[in-house]
């Protein structure tokens, strides 16, 4: 009745509820950050290069998600599936970089409990990483069906979700890494 396919409509509503979850968390972080200028001394220990590289990886993976959508529009399930796999590979790269980054930080003594800045850092980035992980699982699942040329509308839906994950990172990166 709305003219929007039901699956896509549902994805938008999922995103709406996700936005308020991240909104609550980031809002709380920003309020605290304003009240605690001394967190600068902690934020300085985040790895901007790793974060920047990850930003680049995620943005590129969003591009391949767009290309996958275009392929699906053409009815080309095979290349849509390939591009989705590429997107998932971007997600995997992101998580691997993240793993190295966190290992380095934790071994340097910056754990989730050491300071409220790091608590926010690990909580927000961790929640985001979980979304990346969930997105990858769905990407693989959708790629499997798309390869058989069925349910091609799912390619767009997972694409929308992936862009959202990307956009959340676009907020996290400056707030957690760059703001010093």
């Amino acid at each position: 009745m709305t003219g929007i396919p039901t699956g896509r409509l549902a994805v938008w509503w999922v995103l709406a509820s996700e936005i308020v979850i991240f909104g609550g968390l980031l809002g709380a972080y920003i309020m605290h950050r304003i009240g605690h200028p001394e967190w600068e001394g902690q934020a300085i220990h985040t790895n901007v290069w790793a974060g920047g590289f990850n930003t680049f990886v995620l943005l590129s993976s969003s591009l391949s998600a767009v290309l996958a959508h275009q392929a699906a529009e053409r009815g080309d399930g095979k290349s849509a599936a390939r591009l989705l796999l590429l997107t998932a590979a971007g997600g995997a790269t992101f998580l691997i970089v993240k793993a190295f980054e966190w290992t380095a930080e934790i071994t340097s003594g910056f754990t989730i409990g050491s300071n409220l800045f790091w608590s926010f850092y690990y909580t927000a980035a961790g929640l985001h990483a979980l979304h990346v992980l969930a997105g990858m699982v769905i990407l693989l699942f959708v790629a499997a069906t798309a390869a058989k040329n069925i349910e091609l509308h799912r390619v767009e839906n997972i694409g929308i979700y992936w862009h959202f994950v990307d956009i959340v990172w676009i907020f996290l990166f400056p707030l957690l890494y760059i703001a010093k």
Partner: protein
Amino acid sequence: MTGHAPDATRAPGFVRTYLWSTDHKTIGLQYMLTGMAMALIGAFAAYVFRMQAAFPGASVPLFGRVAAADYNYLVTMHGTIMIFWVAMPVLLAGFGNYLIPLMLGCDDMVFPRVNRLSYQIFFLSSVVLVASFFVPGGAFGGAWTAYPPLSANSAYSMTPFGSTLWLLAVALEFVAFLLGGINFITTTMNSRAPGMKMFDIPIIVWTIMIAAVLFMGSVGPLVAGAVMLLFDQVVGTGFYDPARGGDPVLWQHLFWFFGHPEVYVLLLPAMGIVAEVMVVFARKKLFAYRTIVYSAVATGIISFFVWAHHQFVAGIDPRMASLFSVTTLIISIPVAEMFFAYIATLYGGSIRFSTPMLWALAFVAEFLIGGVTGIFLGSAGSDIYFHDTYFVVAHFHYTFFPIAFLAAFAGITFWFPKMFGRMMNETWGKVHFWGTIIAFNICFIPLFITGTAGDHRRIFDYSMFAELATPEMQSLRILATRALLVTLAFQVVFVVNFVYSLFRGTVAEANPWKANTLEWLAPSPPPHGNFVTMPVVYRGPYEYSVPNRDEDYWPQHEPDEPADPDAPGARRPLQQPA
């Protein structure tokens, strides 16, 4: 449940039909029955702590002596269960699941498997919550609002496992309702019967959908807050610990940013049920349908801006309190509008006092008391005194009891014939009604008085407080407790009537109340897939007592009579576009 529904493709077994079903009706009933089972636990908790309040130190039958810690966890669990595990599943998920596809004239929710998952997560959350009663240290006792640092640190709460399980259960419950809410919204937006325009949607579908949107928009920050609280409890972060730069008041904001819209998440479906019942038994068109829809939307929007009225004396900036006092009184405007329209609906009606109608009318009468007493609390000046007293307790029981019980009973008795294909017994229904209503009022009016005299909440024994430990106050507490016992006793009548009617009630036809909405077109009970032939909608849902017609109702699915195109209620050419 008599004669299970035949599936179009194959006859599913017992498990597929009742336990693992994707049928929205089964899921709705699962929610409803789980909610009713949880209500028994919530009611038992109320029974125990009210006995302690009335007869401090006495051994309570079926429980034993109530220690301070017991009292705390009982009040906490009573609040948590009644709101999250009774009102939510019964009103929103139960009626929402059961009614939305039927009233929209479609065969199921758009995502039946997501729907099933939603119930399963909800069920899991109930199990986790009930399990928390039995862990070392006992269940969480820091009030349903769970203010940190008390809830964040087991050194303060003394319930290391209870706090965490409570939080996990609540978080799981939120996930379940988010999944359900997405289904409700997308179904309403995309799966209406042909011809059903926006303003042909029954009010209850509107209100449930608005409630789902409200829930979705308000719960997110609390989900984030719950993750932070969980980390404070489990991994030792300090989000709410002032000694480490955190802020306990942050949780209060996140909690009430959700907590107040939550009131309307529950009120709106209840208002919807009452509207559906009132029009049928008054044989009247709903007064100012569009105004009611707009008011419901306005209520929803304003409800996002009132949360801090729970925190007037919590140390927030006093100027902020003024602001929230204003928004709080503003929200009384659309709510009052809705109630005025409901009362106006009765004007010129032909009112039949069947059991569902009695519940619906009682809802309006009782909720008005709850509504006006809220003004005392929304006005910052008087809230200084009333905050956290029994006046508050009495106030929100005058809102939540009508919502979670009066409206729910109205809905259950009204749709029972549709759900189970049999009528409920009217005589016992009326016995249950009068017993509940009278006892309920005797239970809570004394609490308004004790609250006004200074009784503060969640106190297991008032003997420490000279002003409150008087015989007069104690006699009021005893009166309230006795009335509670009577209220609870009358629920036995309902349970017996429910079970008896399930198997022995008069067999119901498809449309026993002569109602207009589409669910009454489906057989009682509707089979899997709902309708024999999918309906087409020709008019709004409330065309009762239309002049120049033989029948005093005009179902939505009945084609227009070509002889009388100008009859009021017939589809006019210039109908509001969807």
